[in-house]
């Protein structure tokens, strides 16, 4: 199917749908043979809000390759459909990526994710609707944020959020956009990615008045991988980092303990032995350096 922009005149060939966001569909497309992704919106004003965010980020980062390529309307079935074109980034949602590559892969991806967030925060924006589905990881571990429908200027009320990732839902703060809002969602994202079933069960069974970050910390402490991240999780849920760069630095310190990828299903005692071996190796290394 071909799509022609009404204002700028570019022609796109729609190849296949990549997914549906909160306010439209994303398609893999090509323009003059070059691949790109197209987001077709349901509502012009709604999609323009998102385009405005992307355009504003673009202005702040001149040295990077362009992400937002075009914004236009196209006539489809007798209606004007607003759309924008963006760079196509291959990758899979972070939860699937971690399940396939093991928790060790989470260590690297988590660091990259926080670097992306740091760039956004330094430009004056909060991502807002941070969740597993909105974080794509390329095979090399590079992280891309997709669906900027929740992106909000720091100081304003978050435009769009997902309940279980929202600190307001957990009685842990308001919905005014600040970097800590994204840290909180990032912490929930890792619980969702590594311990999704227990998280879902908790949200189904916990009475609303008992929602509290301590319930999330309970999951963290009793999970074989998440417990290595306890310190980071606590700081993220409490909003205690000095900056997102610090959050990223501390993540790398904590997440190193996730190791080189212990696949799921390894009995606890074996994982424990591996940890003990690592600890011994670390002691040995320290001794060796101390000589």
């Amino acid at each position, binding site marked *: 199917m071909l799509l022609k922009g009404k204002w700028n005149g570019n022609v796109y060939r729609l190849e296949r749908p990549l997914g549906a966001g909160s306010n439209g569909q994303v398609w893999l497309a090509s323009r003059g043979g070059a691949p790109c992704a197209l987001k077709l919106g349901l509502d*012009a*004003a709604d999609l323009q809000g998102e385009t405005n965010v992307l355009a504003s980020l673009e202005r702040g980062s001149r040295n990077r390759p362009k992400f937002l390529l075009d914004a236009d309307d196209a006539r489809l079935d007798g209606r*004007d459909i*607003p759309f924008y074109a963006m760079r196509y980034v291959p990758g899979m949602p972070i939860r699937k990526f971690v399940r396939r590559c093991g928790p060790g892969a989470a260590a690297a991806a988590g660091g990259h994710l926080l670097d992306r967030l740091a760039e956004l925060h330094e430009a004056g924006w909060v991502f807002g609707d941070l969740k597993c589905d909105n974080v794509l990881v390329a095979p090399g571990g590079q992280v891309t944020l997709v669906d900027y429908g929740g992106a909000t200027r720091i*100081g304003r009320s978050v435009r769009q959020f997902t309940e279980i990732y929202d600190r307001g839902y957990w009685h842990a*703060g*308001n919905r005014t956009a600040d970097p800590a809002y994204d840290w909180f969602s990032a912490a929930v994202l890792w619980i969702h990615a590594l311990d999704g079933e227990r998280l879902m069960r908790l949200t189904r069974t916990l009475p*609303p008045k008992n929602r509290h970050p301590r319930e999330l910390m309970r999951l963290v402490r009793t999970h074989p991988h998440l417990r290595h991240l306890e310190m980071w999780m606590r700081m993220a849920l*409490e909003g*205690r980092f000095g900056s997102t760069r610090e959050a990223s630095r501390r993540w790398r310190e904590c997440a190193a303990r996730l190791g080189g990828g212990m696949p799921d299903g390894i009995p606890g005692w074996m994982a424990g032995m591996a940890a003990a071996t690592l600890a011994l190796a670390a002691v040995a290394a320290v001794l060796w350096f101390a000589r």
Partner: protein
Amino acid sequence: MNQILLITDGQSNVGESPVTAASRALAQDIVVNVIGVVDEGEAGRIGAEEIEGIARAGGGMSRIVQPHMLTQTVQMMTQQTVVGTIRMTVNKELRQLLGVESVAELPPPKRAEVVRMMEELSETTRLRVALLIDASASMRPKLAAVEEAIRDLALSLQSRQGESAVAVFHFPGEDPHVPCVLDLPWTDRVDGLGKLFRGIRMQGTTPTGPALLRVVEYFRETCGNIKEKTEHSLPPRGWEDPDVMESGDVG
């Protein structure tokens, strides 16, 4: 911008028609939204047509949902009403100034600018939402969900840059001549909400119309009389150590 949000699970059976009452609200620039809240298998009891009729007359929207969807629905309706009202105003201006029907007809650069302005207005415009809660006997098991939805709405309003406030009424009153009772006057604080409906004696009648009219009157009485936004209304972000509140605040 003024809104009434009616949450009910039944049909009105006393006094003026709620549809007439809603059109009177709209005539005073108060939009009326309606949520019918039902448990599974209870859907037949609710007056779906009446709910739709009230919302249409009140310039708002209506939904029938189960209690666990209440919080999201309250959020969605309130926000969409704000956005919708601003769009209507802006589109009217565009018609008069530029002769186009809506923002979608503008070329992209102009559209970008107008949308930026609409978002600015949605965030900063003064907003008051009065919740009118049906407290007839059948609502009793749903009141916890209603309270949570009110807390959540208050939290979102408090997070806006513009001045915002909620007020809460329930109906009917204990006296047959009192169609509804004010539980919480205009407030912009979440932490003061507490238990809203403790000790209510649930009654049998459902005077939806008279209760709506009473809330419209309340808007008239209190117009321009909302408490100033207080300096500090955030719930603490560090919930274990009071000292960490400052360090978490990097916004």
